[in-house]
């Protein structure tokens, strides 16, 4: 198994946010994680990346135990994340942000090539190459955050609400891109509020509720599940 999370517990101070999550991702899959606000989706992704430390359980990625590894080593092992709230480096330029994405990657030719590819993917970014990231519009920053994560040449990409604040046309474009890069072999974990679009893209999905996994199934089954429809797909849909 590519990524396997077993009985993951996470605490913020004294409050436990995750009460034993079990989740796995196979190589080449897109796995979607759904859940209401505060269910623990972001916390799960952050503990995979090592930014919050697990208080119990294990996270194994390609045979490596991540839960005890420092964050920078996890990234070097091939885990990249597009964090919630984008967190681009505001006073650095777009170009420098992308450069930093490839911090663990020393293959210069590949870096250049990926950067060009990202500029094709998001032409606005090419125009804004030397603008400071902090002055980009919300959507532009989101594109930059995705581009930056791709620069790391990851083996697994964790996305935390990538469609947040993006224009519909871009949401479509990004989801299409995700599908493409997935088809070229990249494994993807996708956290989304836009559940319908996410499930259409994903192979499998998980539903989180207050720090626990309450449902796990194939994407089609989840889409068809009346509970899921009620809770996350806004009932009837359009």
């Amino acid at each position, binding site marked *: 198994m590519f990524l396997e999370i077993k009985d993951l517990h996470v605490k913020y101070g004294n409050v436990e946010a995750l009460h034993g999550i079990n989740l796995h991702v196979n190589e080449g899959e897109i796995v979607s994680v759904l859940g209401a606000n505060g269910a623990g989706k972001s916390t799960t992704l952050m503990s995979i*990346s090592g930014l919050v430390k697990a208080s119990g359980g294990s996270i194994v990625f390609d045979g490596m135990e991540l839960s005890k590894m420092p964050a920078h080593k996890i*990234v070097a092992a091939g885990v990249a994340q597009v964090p919630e709230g984008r967190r681009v480096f505001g006073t*650095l330029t777009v170009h420098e942000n992308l450069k930093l*994405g490839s911090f663990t990657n020393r293959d210069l030719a590949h870096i250049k090539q990926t950067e060009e590819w990202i500029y094709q993917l998001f032409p606005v970014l090419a125009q804004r190459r030397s603008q400071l990231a902090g002055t980009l519009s919300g959507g532009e920053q989101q594109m930059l955050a995705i581009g930056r994560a791709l620069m790391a040449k990851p083996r697994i990409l964790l996305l935390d609400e990538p469609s947040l604040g993006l224009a519909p046309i871009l949401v479509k474009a990004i989801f299409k891109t995700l599908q493409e890069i997935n088809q070229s072999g990249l494994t993807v974990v996708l956290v989304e509020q836009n559940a319908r679009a996410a499930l259409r893209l994903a192979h499998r999905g998980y539903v989180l509720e207050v720090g626990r996994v309450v449902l796990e199934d194939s994407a089609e089954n989840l889409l068809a599940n009346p509970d899921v429809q009620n809770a996350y797909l806004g009932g009837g849909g359009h």
Partner: protein
Amino acid sequence: MEEFFQQLTNGLAVGGIYALIALGYTMVYGVLKLINFAHGDLFTLGAYLGLTLLTSLGLSDHVGPFTGASILALMVMGLVAIVGMLLERTAYRPLRESPRLSAVVSALGASIFLQNSIMLIYGAKFYVYPQDVLPRTTIEIFGVYIPLMRILILVVSLVMMAALYLFTQKTRVGTAIRAAAIDQGAAKLMGINVDRVIMLVFLIGPALGGSAGLMVGLYYGQINFTMGWIYGLKAFTAAILGGIGNIPGAMVGGLLLGVIEALGAAYISVAWKDAIAFVVLIAILIVRPKGLLGERVAEKI
């Protein structure tokens, strides 16, 4: 006119020292947003360690004055860097996630601690560097007297600034330092070892401060355990003047502050010179609220 140029060189010499200390200040500030009030005391420590090493090793007798001084400088920088790193570990690291001013108070505590440690170890009296460690030649150009030491101070500051600037702007690690300065969490997500980056910064900053201390000892000869306080404040002022966090800014701010002081003393009043310097500082900040070279990103709302 002669007097003007003489005063200008006087100011540049003082400013060179300010700049050197300010570089270390700005370096640390840039990453941790921490006003390291203990920086001035690391500077003092540099001066004292320099004196101890100088008198106990007698380096220049063996290898010549300049090589001796360079080796001495490296040793002092190394030792002060270690103290700086320990300081970061004990007094600043636990405060990384807490309000900024908490760390400032911890830094003030560290400053008091360091200053009094030096006093207890060396005693409260003035110490005097041996004279003529470096040749004390003064050259005269068109009636302007320039001691060689001053040229040395300026050159060292400029070289350090250029090196630091290139390092932070052009290298991979330098970019990592800047990224960590903005958002440590996001930097970790880039695979940057943030603890290492901060440690590095706390090696470089104090080392620069220590080297400035040694320089002051060698040039002025007289040191005492409280001197870091005034120098630290001046250097902090210089860093702000140039735009804190900005490396060329520290240089510009330092030199400018030195020159303002000298010209203020020369043409207005010696007794008021510090007040004049602050008035100029305030005037500049009113016009440029982020200092001379500080970044001026309008906050995106």
